[in-house]
């Protein structure tokens, strides 16, 4: 396999409602910005990969309608679908296409326009016999796991609230973020509306309109086109059985993310993630999940996640900044969310992350999460 790198990224300005543009126009906004960032023209793109959550916009075959927005006419174009992981999986598919020698330049674009459809309906269309018939889509993926996680690991509601505070404050440095608040407090989170015990509104990711894109290049092209490519050091993905009753301790064990990250660490030679990673952009759909992922990803021992957030270790000035962009809690156009994680990690290596740039970032982790049933881990670095 050939080495591959990311040489450009682009994001829309994510928001609750982007009814100033159509779906293909939203996709075009991110795709154009990524090509500009890479210094390329549409004709330079060899293949296009799209990511989106079917049903959320109430339009079948979303890839059919937005491909032209991603400059895909006359080119190989397909959609990758792995739930919330679709964005990271699409990036990984792009890495594979370039690494295999199939294509030299691959454009990966993820998008979602939650405001146009009914996300709750899409989310409610789960297994019709054992899940939907009982809970009518009333349950998120987390509520049933969090009470267990809190009891087992001694995590408090206040510690979880600190994750949301970090997210909102970091997002204040990110012009693309949907939600930001430089003055967010723990009280704001604890006083926000209760969605399902113990999850408050500010513990949960929003639904955003937005798109994100990356330009993947083969090693030879990357060296020619970029002074400082973000090299793909490792990429791993894992799938898991879906029924919620089959794995009782999902948040505690999260086998998909644990195995994907261990595989990626081994490939990239990472034995001490807290020390060797300069930052992480992780897919944290809820505050409690970010804490659980600290443990699963090996940033700390089991039961230490609450201490890690309290001590500021994962703050933007901490030893391992986690989600300096504000993360999923601050912007969540689902089909794009995984692409955003990879794009943000790449922008940090490229040195183009703006006000939330981590100085001298050389090694970055990006992860994806898809309804417990998928997880992806991507490690980017400043050297091949």
């Amino acid at each position, binding site marked *: 396999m050939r080495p591959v790198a990311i040489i450009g990224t682009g994001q829309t300005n994510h928001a609750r409602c982007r009814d100033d543009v159509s779906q293909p126009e939203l996709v075009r906004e991110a795709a154009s910005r990524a090509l500009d960032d890479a210094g390329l023209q549409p004709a330079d793109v060899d293949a296009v990969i799209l990511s989106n959550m079917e049903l959320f916009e109430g339009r079948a075959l979303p890839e059919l309608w937005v491909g032209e927005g991603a400059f895909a006419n006359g080119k190989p174009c397909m959609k990758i679908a792995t739930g919330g992981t679709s964005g990271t999986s699409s990036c990984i598919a792009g890495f594979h296409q370039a690494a295999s020698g199939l294509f030299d330049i691959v454009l990966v674009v993820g998008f979602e326009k939650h405001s146009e459809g009914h996300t709750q309906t899409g989310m409610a269309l789960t297994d019709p016999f054992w899940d939907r018939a*009982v*809970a009518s889509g*009333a349950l998120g993926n987390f509520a049933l796991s969090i009470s*267990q996680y809190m009891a087992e690991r001694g995590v408090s509601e206040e510690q979880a609230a600190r994750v949301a505070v970090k997210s909102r404050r970091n997002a204040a440095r990110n012009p693309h973020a949907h939600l930001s608040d430089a003055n967010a407090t723990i009280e704001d989170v604890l006083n926000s509306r209760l969605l399902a015990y113990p999850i408050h509104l500010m513990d949960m990711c929003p639904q955003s309109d937005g798109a994100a894109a990356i330009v993947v290049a083969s090693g030879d092209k990357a060296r020619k086109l970029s002074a400082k490519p973000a090299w793909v050091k490792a990429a791993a993905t894992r799938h898991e059985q879906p029924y919620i*009753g*089959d794995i*009782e301790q999902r948040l505690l064990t999260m086998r998909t993310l644990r195995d994907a990250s261990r595989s990626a660490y081994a490939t990239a030679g990472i034995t001490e993630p807290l020390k060797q990673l300069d930052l992480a952009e992780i897919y944290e759909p809820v505050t409690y999940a970010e804490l659980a992922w600290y443990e699963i990803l090996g940033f700390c021992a089991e039961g230490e996640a609450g201490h890690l957030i309290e001590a500021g270790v994962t703050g933007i000035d901490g030893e391992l900044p986690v989600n300096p962009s504000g993360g999923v809690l601050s912007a969540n156009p689902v089909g794009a969310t995984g692409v955003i994680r990879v794009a943000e990690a790449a922008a940090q290596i490229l040195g183009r992350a703006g006000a939330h740039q981590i100085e001298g970032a050389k090694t970055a982790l990006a992860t994806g999460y898809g309804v417990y049933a998928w997880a992806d881990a991507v490690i980017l670095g400043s050297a091949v």
Partner: protein
Amino acid sequence: MIREEAIKIPFQYAAGTAGSEFLINLRDHRQLTGSRCSDCERTLAPARAYCPDCGREGLHSVNIGPGAELVSWTIVPDKGVFALVRPDGADTAMLHKLLGPIDDPQPGIRLQVVFREERSGHINDIEGFAIVQENGE
């Protein structure tokens, strides 16, 4: 310009071999059915055509419940208390409702399945799982 529209989407799903067996036993015999995997030596709830973890097919059907243990729970405002419950004899949990009165449920407490009088071959032929009081009622 914004166009508003609503689409009604009818569906018709097949429960499959194992799912049908579970639902028929529920309807006709007030009985919960699990599937025993001889490879990983687990009993899965509800019944399956194949083991979701190790992939083995041709699992043996076994009766599970009616007692059960609470695994985890959440309260959804205006919707009720949902729980993962592990029926006796099963190694995995099922999603269902927890019936009241509920005061600070803890993982591990004993439960009992409550069936509806009118049953049609639907998971909601189970009304929910009730907490077994300490005096054994």
